[in-house]
């Protein structure tokens, strides 16, 4: 591969990693903070894309409004999953499965068909010069990570951290852990849905199947980052989610360039996840470390 090819590959890695890193960031809130193995994201990503696509293609809504709307719809979806668990007393895994299934139909209803092309609509990303796109997307993603770090260092953030690890402490402090679970899932799915909307803008379409396997790849990115960063502090956990997203996407791109048969891509992702998990556990055990966050899965 020539230099130009490598550069263009790196640019697309940065762009895609920045977009999908928001899903990984969502996992920090749902999986790691409140310990909720939330499968909703498998569908709420597409929900974000669908909401965005339908708003920019049919109405005269601006892309910015459509992005915000996508985020809000995702937050509602996440809250509903959490409510099924908190109020309906359905198990965490099943609550996620129920919402994931329901959202599939909802996504079809939103779009009215299984695929919407956005070729003719105005997109904020298209307005940017190509060489600036990776930078803008990366800075955008970083600002979300920065905001999350800020939030998690407030008292509310402390409560979110305590909620998954020591729920009894939340009770002792006179707070409601149900509320914190709802909040965490709203944030996680809001981020995921927002990420889906950006992805729709980036790819120029929204498709009902665009988030298939997303949970595994986002989880793989998180674990990969954690295996590298050993998140003993909050900063390192967020850094792990960020770096993991990039390394995962890079590995994925390299895999594609090495002409791994598309059929076998999921095998590669599965192997990568398994290896990362084993490596992470081995490092943690050997160093006697205590990592930030709960092992939701």
């Amino acid at each position, binding site marked *: 591969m020539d230099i130009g090819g490598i550069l263009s590959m790196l640019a697309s890695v940065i762009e895609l990693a920045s977009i999908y890193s928001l899903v990984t960031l969502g996992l920090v809130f749902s999986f790691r903070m409140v310990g909720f193995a939330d499968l909703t994201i498998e569908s709420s990503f597409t929900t974000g894309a669908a909401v965005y696509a339908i708003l920019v293609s049919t109405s005269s809504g601006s892309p910015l409004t459509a992005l915000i709307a996508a985020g809000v719809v995702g937050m509602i979806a996440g809250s509903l999953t959490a409510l099924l668990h908190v109020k309906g007393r359905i198990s965490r895994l099943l609550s996620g499965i129920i919402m994931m299934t329901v959202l599939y139909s909802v996504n079809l209803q939103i779009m009215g068909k299984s695929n919407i092309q956005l070729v003719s609509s105005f997109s904020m990303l298209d307005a940017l010069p190509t060489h600036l796109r990776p930078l803008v997307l990366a800075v955008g993603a970083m600002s979300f990570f920065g905001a999350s770090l800020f939030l998690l260092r407030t008292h509310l953030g402390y*409560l979110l951290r305590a909620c998954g690890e020591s729920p*009894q*402490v939340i009770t*002792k*402090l006179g*707070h409601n852990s149900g509320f914190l679970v709802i909040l965490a899932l709203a944030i996680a799915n809001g981020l995921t849905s927002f990420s889906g909307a950006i992805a729709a803008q980036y790819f120029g379409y929204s498709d009902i199947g665009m988030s298939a396997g997303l949970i595994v790849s986002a989880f793989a990115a998180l674990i990969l980052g954690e295996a590298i960063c050993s998140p*003993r502090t909050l900063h390192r956990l967020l850094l792990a989610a960020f770096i993991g997203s990039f390394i995962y996407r890079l590995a994925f791109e390299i895999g594609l360039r090495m002409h791994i048969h598309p059929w076998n891509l999921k095998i590669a992702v599965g192997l990568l996840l398994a290896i990362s998990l084993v490596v992470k556990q081995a490092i943690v055990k050997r160093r006697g470390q*205590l990592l930030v966050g709960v092992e939701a899965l």
Partner: protein
Amino acid sequence: MIGPNGSGKTTLLKILSGGIESFEGNVFIDGRSATKAKARHFSRSVQLLEQSPERNTVPSMTIEENLRLYSRNGRFPSLSFLNKGGTEKIKRLLARFEMDLESRLSSQVGLLSGGQKQAVALAAVLLRSPKVLLLDEFLASIDPMSAPKLLSVVREAAAERGITVLMVSHDLTQVEATGDRLIILANGKVADDISTEGQAMKRSEIVSRYSVILERNGIL
């Protein structure tokens, strides 16, 4: 408070700390009924510390983060990390335990020893200035060197700040050294209530009265 297994000690402490909401009767704190109070109100005046450190503190959070988590009563979010003023207060409080905790504010609580974990938990609840402190087998699983130190901090704090302490323990040495009143529970009822009026309780007396109750209830 002592009593055989299943006599209702933990249940009573849970009711007193607002952990159980449906029960017969009433809880009064400072003469005011607390049963109708919200969890938030409860958590300000009553603090419960349990045997398992994971139920009192968050293991992956540092000593300082745990104390800051507890130190705030109000609504969130507050910018905990911007408030550096409280650090001196936290250090002074930790110094009382003589475990060198004040120099390890950024250590994760989960990596400390059992005694140190409970010391952090005790410091944390003291920051909330409770009126009532409930200790449920609080010192049961920590080393015999740390237990007396923690107990003496509890006693000092109770005297200084007028905190009412209700301690459940199986360790008669602790009971003997600590209380000015001993309640013996059996089958969910107060079987004996001994006031010592400032005198140290004799272990032999505790044992004999406790045995009588156990026999009467068919436990011994």
